[in-house]
């Protein structure tokens, strides 16, 4: 099968370090790869995956707590003598990125052939043999193949995408999946963040084929217009036009490929097959830090490196042949809960909770603690679990070994570890509870992660997104705000007086012990620069709803007002719902998978997933209540969003007007003015149409009409107009981006001219003093002059003018005011002349 010599062994490299603080404070005492996922340490999943993939030798690269990983592996089945997979642990204290690990690996010269590179926090059920097979087959054809990236399909709003700060657009060759170009887009970008309408219509099938023919006219600059969007209605088309996004694609790739696939539907699955020379490439380019952003991009853009990168796209068709198609990396607490959800609902089969991942020790009498009893609705009940008669276990739950659930306790969408105690009347929803946790009576936990050995006393409410570190005691009777992190330093290191911290009993309760974790506490980690921007805090965090991301986006737009993302306060919009609803349900804390953004309409759709699952126990009434509250909150948020939007645009307009006036007064050059305007537009994320309108109006206002007392002074008017337009024509044309904009420009001029009597006091005076027909004549002449000079200075095209003129005549000529009619009539001669000159031109063309 595999095209390698029999004496060659298959090696794999696991990177057991993520260089971020996403799991703090849970990772204060434990390395991330040993945190339990569905009650199994995460490293078990990747080792099991590699074992099934018939890997012979594994190198684990770690930095923090190597002793713990070593000790864990020593006691696990992996280090039993005779196991076919050899595991080595490499400790690299000084590394600060994946690139550093690769360089260290290169120095050690341990890698002999092509190897698998993956993260330690990774769950997959892929058929690695097939992927390797294809990799080696390609290698026979293309000797320069350096890497095969394993990519997974996911639609625009798919939950796999939510965690990523950046979305990647992959340009591949459709025949051999060779990667040609990658483009990363910030998720918070207007076009791809919360409102996905535009991206939907850009990539109707999530994949566009670009043909060489289409691109030949201007191959370096492509616009994704709606060539493929036949399905969309015109309304959406016009909407998408405003939000068009442009990418630059290197010309070279069109020379080499007749067809190019632009894939927006792919996400990285944090798995790659690398040739040994990848290591030396990393060593040569010491600034490479990450795989996709630095390495792949570096290889693709470099002229010197002849290596190639291929993509292996996992489609769900492979499941027909019994091969898995699930793979997902765990980067933060958000993807942690997503992956746990996928494992529980069996997307990752055969990786599922009741598959015994780690064999028990070899003693004959020991009972396997890992086995679960499967119940309908994807409920997994461990050994020795005591369920009280009146407790409610909802769908998608795991109850670990020896867990006790008392009467009237409710658990759904959650994982409880081994030996937990869930007391009476407590509610646990969408949460992950590690081993040996006790939850007191009347406590509520929503969308949070509770570390091991935590004690939660009576009447504690933990709102969504909280992370409670190991050994913390909370309560009684406290409420934690959303996204609170509490930790307790390890008892051995310092006593409390030394660390200078005092327990804030208003936070953790009278009997509680624990401190508020601020992300700045992590300053001692020198690599902590990756996500210092507060808006990124929301990414890949448990308990985050799409609403929060929407806020992140809009607060980014209004960053001038408030830079810090104060999501607690903003979210308090719906905090009052909290108070009036019953104790058992809470709209904020419903699992985020219960909501989705409808991409076309932009509002939230609620699906009662508990009901659809046919679970044995579900509290659908509560959910309905949630829904009512939800739609209320949603309206407020829509309104808030609208207001914010309006305010920003207002500010933007004022700024543009001020800039233009200054430019005209101080007689700036066109370059200076345009630079200033562009800066403004970027800062406010302003609308292009809006900006064009304001600029043109400002320019036209500078045409001095004061000398025009009588219709006979037309010459003066003409000169004046010419002067202004010749100066600023370039600036206007800089604001014109497509052929549609010509018509828009003429419209702006037309409206401006016809509304002069209303807007300009001088004109109003003139209007009242003079004979109406004379005045109309002046204005229509003025309009004609402007249009003519716009044409002469190449701002608008003749064809566009003719089209506009004909459109006006056909459509609403009859309903126009006399002023407007005369303005249009004034154009007729000019249009005629244009028509003729056009024909002349075409005749000339023919004669040529």
């Amino acid at each position: 099968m595999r095209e390698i010599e029999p004496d060659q062994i298959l090696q794999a490299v696991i990177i057991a370090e993520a260089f971020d603080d996403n799991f703090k404070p849970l990772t204060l005492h434990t390395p991330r790869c040993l945190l339990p996922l569905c009650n199994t340490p995460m490293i078990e999943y990747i080792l099991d995956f590699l074992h099934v993939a018939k890997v012979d030798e594994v190198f684990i690269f770690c930095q923090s707590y190597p002793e713990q990983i070593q000790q864990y592996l020593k006691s696990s089945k992996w280090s039993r003598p005779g196991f076919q997979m050899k595991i080595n642990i490499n400790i690299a204290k000084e590394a600060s990125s994946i690139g550093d690990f690769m360089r260290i690996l290169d120095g050690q010269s341990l890698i002999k052939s092509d190897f698998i590179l993956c993260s330690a926090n990774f769950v997959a059920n892929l058929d690695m043999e097939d992927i390797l097979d294809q990799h080696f087959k390609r290698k026979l054809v293309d000797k320069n193949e350096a890497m095969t990236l394993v990519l997974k399909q996911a639609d625009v709003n798919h939950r796999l995408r939510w965690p990523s700060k950046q979305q990647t657009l992959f340009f591949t060759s459709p025949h051999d999946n060779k990667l040609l170009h990658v483009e990363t887009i910030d998720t918070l970008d207007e076009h791809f963040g919360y409102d996905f309408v535009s991206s939907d219509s850009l990539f109707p099938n999530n994949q566009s084929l670009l043909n060489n023919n289409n691109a030949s006219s201007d191959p370096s600059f492509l616009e994704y217009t709606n060539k493929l969007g036949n399905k969309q209605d015109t309304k959406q088309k016009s909407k998408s036009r405003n939000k068009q996004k442009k990418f630059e694609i290197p010309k070279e790739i069109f020379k080499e490929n007749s067809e190019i696939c632009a894939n927006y539907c792919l996400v990285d699955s944090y798995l790659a097959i690398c040739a040994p020379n990848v290591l030396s490439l990393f060593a040569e380019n010491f600034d490479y830090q990450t795989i996709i952003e630095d390495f792949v991009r570096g290889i693709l853009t470099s002229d010197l490196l002849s290596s190639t990168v291929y993509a292996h796209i996992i489609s769900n068709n492979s499941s027909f042949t019994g091969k898995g198609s699930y793979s997902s990396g765990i980067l933060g607490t958000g993807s942690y809960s997503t992956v746990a959800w996928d494992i529980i609902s069996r997307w990752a089969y055969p990786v599922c909770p009741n598959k015994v991942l780690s064999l028990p020790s070899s003693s004959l009498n020991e009972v396997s603690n890992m086995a679960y009893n499967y119940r309908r609705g994807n409920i997994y009940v461990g050994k020795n679990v005591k369920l009280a008669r009146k407790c409610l276990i909802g769908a998608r739950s795991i109850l670990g070994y020896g867990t006790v659930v008392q009467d009237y306790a409710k658990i759904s969408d959650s994982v409880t570890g081994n030996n937990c105690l869930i007391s009476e009347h407590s509610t646990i929803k969408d949460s992950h509870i590690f081993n040996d946790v006790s939850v007191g009576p009347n406590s509520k936990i929503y969308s949070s992660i509770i570390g091991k050995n935590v004690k939660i006393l009576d009447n504690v409410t933990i709102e969504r997104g909280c992370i409670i570190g190991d050994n913390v005691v909370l309560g009684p009777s406290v409420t934690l705000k959303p996204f609170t992190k509490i930790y307790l330093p390890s008892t051995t290191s310092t006593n409390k007086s030394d660390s200078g911290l005092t327990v804030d009993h208003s936070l953790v309760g009278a009997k509680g012990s624990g401190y508020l974790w601020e992300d700045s506490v992590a300053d001692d980690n020198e690599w902590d620069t990756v996500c210092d921007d507060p808006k990124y805090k929301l990414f890949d965090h448990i308990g985050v709803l799409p609403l929060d991301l929407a806020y992140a986006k809009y607060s980014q737009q209004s960053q001038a007002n408030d830079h810090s993302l104060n999501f607690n306060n903003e979210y308090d919009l719906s905090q009052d719902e909290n108070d009036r609803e019953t104790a058992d349900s809470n709209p904020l804390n419903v699992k985020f998978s219960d909501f989705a953004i409808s991409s076309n309409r932009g509002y939230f759709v609620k699906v009662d997933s508990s009901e659809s699952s046919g679970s044995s126990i579900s509290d659908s009434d509560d959910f309905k209540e949630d829904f009512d509250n939800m739609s209320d909150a949603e309206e407020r948020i829509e309104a808030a969003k609208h207001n914010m939007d309006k305010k920003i645009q207002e500010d933007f307009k004022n700024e543009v007007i001020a800039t233009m006036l200054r430019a005209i007064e101080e007689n700036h050059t066109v370059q200076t003015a345009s630079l200033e305007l562009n800066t403004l537009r970027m800062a406010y994320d302003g609308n292009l149409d809006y900006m064009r309108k304001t600029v043109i109006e400002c320019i036209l206002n500078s045409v001095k009409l004061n000398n025009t007392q009588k219709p006979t002074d037309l010459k003066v008017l003409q000169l004046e107009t010419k002067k202004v337009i010749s100066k600023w024509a370039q600036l206007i044309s800089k604001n014109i981006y497509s052929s549609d904009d010509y018509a828009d420009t003429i419209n702006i001029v037309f409206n401006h001219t016809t509304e002069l009597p209303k807007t300009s006091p001088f004109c109003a005076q003139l209007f009242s003093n003079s004979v109406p027909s004379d005045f109309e004549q002046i204005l229509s002449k003025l309009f004609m002059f402007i249009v003519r000079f716009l044409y002469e200075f190449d701002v608008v095209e003749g064809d566009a003018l003719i089209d506009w003129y004909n459109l006006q005549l056909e459509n609403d000529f009859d309903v126009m005011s006399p002023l407007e009619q005369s303005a249009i009539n004034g154009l007729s001669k000019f249009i005629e002349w244009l028509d003729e000159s056009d024909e002349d031109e075409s005749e000339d063309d023919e004669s040529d």
Partner: protein
Amino acid sequence: MSTRDLLHLTENFTNRINRRQIIGSLEKALEITNLVQTIVNSTRWEDLSNLLYLIKFTGQQIVRAHPKDLVLFNVICRMIHLVRTEAENAPIFQNNSNDNSLFTPTGTGVSTPKMGLGQSNLGSSSKLVDLLDVNLSKKNQSSVTFRTNLKNCITQGINDFIEELEGSRANIASHALDHVHEIILTCGYSRTVERFFKKAAIKRKFTVIIAETAPWYSGHKLAASLASLNIETIIISDSAVFAMMSRVNKVIIGTKIVMANGGLIACAGSQMIAAAAKYHSIPVVVCASLYKLSPVFPFGQDNLNELEAPDGIFPYKDEIVDQIDVLNPSTDYVAPELIDILVDHLGSHLPSYLYRLLQENYHPDDLRALGAQL
């Protein structure tokens, strides 16, 4: 071979199943038999109780690693029973005929239902071992000859069993002409059923209607194989089964497991076919080798079923996956009332006759010793 080596061997076996290097129930059965053969031949066991302990220990390891794989469980149970009965029938035990009543294949001491439940108020394994120990201590002087003798007997028995396994498909197929007529309906891909049809096709002309068995489409594979032998083959969608049933003469299906009550754990879709056949009074014939007969009763049906990754039904890439639950059960439980005939290598049986086969092949204490999960 030391105990440590045996552990490696066992671990190697379970890992090979994990790594999908052993696929298919017959292959698994053969591998396990070979493993037991190795234990008998090359471990240092002194007497029968010692040997049985080793086999049970190995069996426990395997069952614990693959708790849902009933074929493994069945074969191990049968091997233990086989080793014991062979030892009893060995010439060395001929004198103690009064003790044998407990263990003889046709022994009257244990009734089937109790056996299936793993409850027996008669002999427990500890007692058995005690009895054997007493027996063996009498024979101290000739222990070497005794061991070789016993080993030969057991090896002979295991070889017979391997022969049975290897010949099971051919033997089942030899009954094909009794069952295959005119229009047959089937589903899934079972190599036993495939062979069954191919054997019948030599002498007879008939039509096979195959339900495609989504989302795995294993029906397509069977169709391709049958069509290559010029058997008239029709593929229908699974939903068309009921509509087609009135034209069918007989339903012939394979199965993964036959439960102790005669019910089946068969590929998803079988239950619908069996129910439709019952409605139209069409006979349902099940082809199953004897190693698929499990001494376990189907009590935890949720536990017996395996829900597989649902992306064959619904693509994971679709963004609404977080709002829906998609279920993809891999098997159906078919109640014994819906099944008319079971065909194994000996011939055709009614489901109600299974207790007899169970009694001949399994011992209740072994179920408990292996820690049956169900």
